[in-house]
């Protein structure tokens, strides 16, 4: 078993290299270059089954080609009546038994890893984060630490992190292809999965269950930092003073506008367990905001003024007073300077 798995792994490595070289996918998004435990386990099975399938396909296609080459109706033999064969016990047994064996070969590791991947018995000894899927954004509650964040999930490299996931409105599905396979985020019950990332970096996450018009824009990021940086980040986040006065005057005005225009009704800065909209505590550190927009001032102003045109069906539209471009600009200024920590996606290598 061991040596055999080793061979598979070598093969996996080789083919992943080949795929990588041929430009198959974006490094921090593709499932073909695993950078975490879950995706590695899945990947091994993908390779194993692909190898089996290649074998099967060759068997079929070679016979097929021979048949087509040898047994076409021949010129001059139009009236030839082939022998009417009823069947052949040996042959039929062979092509029943071999597939059974192949299926067993694939089924055994599948069963084993179904169990390893859903084993949550050690959850208490590891980091636990509550994940909430909402129509079109993700919320992360570091409940052991007592603060929340949204959109960007920070985890330490090389450690197991247990995610307890539930949806607030409709079913979503949590997927970070490079790090782990997906799990549905149901409305009915809490699902727990664990992830473990091997390398520092910023990884794309996607919502994989149809959840409304902006389903395709419900991206998030997983930011994998070193364990030391992670501790630093936790400390910084806990330290945030939501009332802190921004340095620049414009941002100061922005802060007031933010408070006046009902933004606070939904968005918390600093920790606040209730959330209708994303927590903005470390908004200035986002690699993308609203899931997929570059964090430029223009984009942010556009968003604040008309989120509907950017993310159809989002739950922010129409729930706050109309803003002038100038006001939006000031709010943007304020939001973009919310950078409570030194530990940022950039320090993890930046979003590629």
């Amino acid at each position, binding site marked *: 078993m061991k040596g055999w798995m080793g061979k598979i792994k070598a093969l996996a490595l080789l083919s992943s290299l080949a795929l990588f070289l041929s430009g198959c996918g974006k490094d921090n998004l593709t499932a073909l270059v695993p950078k975490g435990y879950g995706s590695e386990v899945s990947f091994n099975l993908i390779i194993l089954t692909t190898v089996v399938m290649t074998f099967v*396909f060759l068997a079929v296609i070679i016979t097929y080609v021979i048949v087509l080459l040898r047994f076409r109706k021949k010129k001059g033999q139009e009236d030839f009546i082939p022998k009417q064969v009823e*069947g052949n016990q040996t042959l039929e047994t062979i092509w029943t038994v071999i597939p059974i064996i192949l299926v067993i070969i*694939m089924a055994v590791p599948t069963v084993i890893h179904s169990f390893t991947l859903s084993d949550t018995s050690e959850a208490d000894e590891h980091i636990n984060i509550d994940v909430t899927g909402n129509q079109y954004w993700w919320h992360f509650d570091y409940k052991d630490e007592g603060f929340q964040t949204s959109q960007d999930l920070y985890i330490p490299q090389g450690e197991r992190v247990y995610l307890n996931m539930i949806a607030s409105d409709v079913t979503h599905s949590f997927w970070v292809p490079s790090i782990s*396979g997906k799990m549905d985020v149901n409305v009915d019950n809490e699902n727990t999965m664990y992830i473990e990332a091997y390398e520092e970096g910023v990884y794309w996450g996607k919502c994989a269950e149809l959840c*409304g018009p902006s389903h*395709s824009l419900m991206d998030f990021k997983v930011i994998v930092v070193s364990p030391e940086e992670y501790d630093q980040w936790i400390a910084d986040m806990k330290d945030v003073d939501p009332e802190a006065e921004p340095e620049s005057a414009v941002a100061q005005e922005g802060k007031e506008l933010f408070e006046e225009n009902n933004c606070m009704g939904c968005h918390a800065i600093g920790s606040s367990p209730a959330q209708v909209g994303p927590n903005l505590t470390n908004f200035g550190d986002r690699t993308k905001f609203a899931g997929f927009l570059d964090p430029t001032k223009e984009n942010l102003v556009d968003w604040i003024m008309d989120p509907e045109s950017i993310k159809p069906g989002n739950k922010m539209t129409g729930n706050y007073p109309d803003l002038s471009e100038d006001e939006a600009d000031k709010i943007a200024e304020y939001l973009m300077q919310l950078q409570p920590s030194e530990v940022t996606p950039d320090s993890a290598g930046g979003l590629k």
Partner: protein
Amino acid sequence: MSVTATQKRSVGAVLWDYLTTIDHKKIAHLYLIGGGFFFILGGLEAVIIRIQLIKPENDFISAGFYNEMITMHGTTMIFLAAMPILLGLMNAIMPLQIGARDVSFPFLNSLGFWLFMFGGLLLNCSWFLGGAPDAGWTSYASLAIDSPGHGVDFYVAGLQIAGAGTLMGGINFLATIVNMRAPGMTYMRMPLFAWATFITSVLILFAFPALTVNLFLLMFDRMFGSAFFDVALGGNTIIWQHLFWIFGHPEVYILILPLFGLFSDVFSTFSKKRLFGYTAMVFATMLIAFLGFMVWAHHMFTVGLGPVANSIFAIATMAIAVPTGIKIFNWLATMWGGSITINSAMLWALGFIPSFTIGGMTGVMLGSAVADYQYHDTYFVIAHFHYVIVGGTVFGIFCGLHYWWPVMFGRILHEGMGKLTFWTFFIGFHMTFFIQHFLGLMGMPRRYWVFLEDQGLDLGNLISTIGAFFMSFAVIVFIINIFYTAAKGERPSPDPYDGRTLEWATASSPPPHYNFAQLPLTRGLDPLWIEKMEGNGKMTPAEPLGDIHMPNGSILPFLMSLGFFIAGFGFIYQVDHSAWYLALYGGMAFALGCMVVRSFKDDHGHHIPKEELEREAD
């Protein structure tokens, strides 16, 4: 009844004839026309999807509209295109293959068609009435409950009506095969297409009720305030997923098994050999159907059912590879040693083997639960099921149409255009869907209105879209072929392909409406072939020539379906205004009234006298 006589009749008379017909061959025409219409509609929707995805962050159509598009594409293709066309083929051919004059329940047969048609129309009315359903063809409960407007209500009402029609079709075929096989046609002498019809009907019978119930639950929740899927009141949305897939997985075998039967007949005919391993083929079909009921949760591996459930369903899923493999290899063995003719019908069958094998293999890969955590809800799944559905079902439908066109319409399709259709479709198909496997693995989830720039997905999507244009071209060629054939097509003999089974043993092409003046006597598998080999050339009659009893046509199926159609609107709109209850009760009462009329009138059918049969035979 000769063809020229038909042509002379006025349009009105033909129309009335089709509205009231209960002849299985004409109902088949209706199914093919209805299903064909919806296939083009679904295909156009597919093309719109592909145009939207031709480049990153495209805004050809809006996000909400895109979701309506995929939902209607999936729903239309599966319920309103593929299944009806298959029911059409079964209707046209199965009774002939078992040597029957008609089906068991001709009235029900017609009712089944009209229910499908009106259900489909009802569903598509949503486009014009505030938006189509947009929760995916799977319509998962949490999103379907959340969906505003009436789109999902149309989905519920339309599918409920169309589904009832399908169920009737299934029961009808079952009773027909059990009770109406011609003398000597034992079960183990039935052509595989007849067997496949039988087993598919069993699947319909056991799978559709789960959908019916599920649709009721959704309807009650959306229209009458119940709480099946309302978590706040203790509801559970996973119930929807279970019931949907308890129906849904058997459904995908409903889509493929008839064509497995068809391909068996085609391979054997065009190789001039009897089917290799007939018994194994029959039992493999049964086994696939049986296992098909025990794998539904492979669509739910990521729901969090736990490792035990996932493992069981993974193993059961992979097990289906075994009977399917038996079939693939038996087909190859059928051709092995044969004398293979390659015409356009056979081309589709030959194209099917590698295409479907790839689709089946990716199916087994999906069946490995742990790997599915990566594949699920990505373009890998889209690639898988288009490989089996297009590479299996659609190829099969084209194969069947080319093969049986003479039986159904008395003309033979143009070969050259047939081949052009095949090659462009075949190339376009692989172009569109092969690349999607990689798109999925590279991180592209399905049902994505846009994919983002700079994620390495551009080229793949572009290729995929170009492929779809190739397929459109092929379909257009096929449509031209139909019109060309209708106008100028060759009139074949009743047995143009040197056939082996009874659909080629009729007196004329197309067959007379009573099929066989005298029921044929079957003396073994491939009955017509046996007679030909023994030098008889045609079937021995199993009965003396006598009067034939045939059922009468009726407009009631059409009217009843119309009643349900109206009631459907009533159901959908009564939430807005109680005046709509009028439509609800009115439509229902009308349909029930038709039923009462039907049951209170004795209808003993009519007799075709022996003399007339003799006259026509000359």
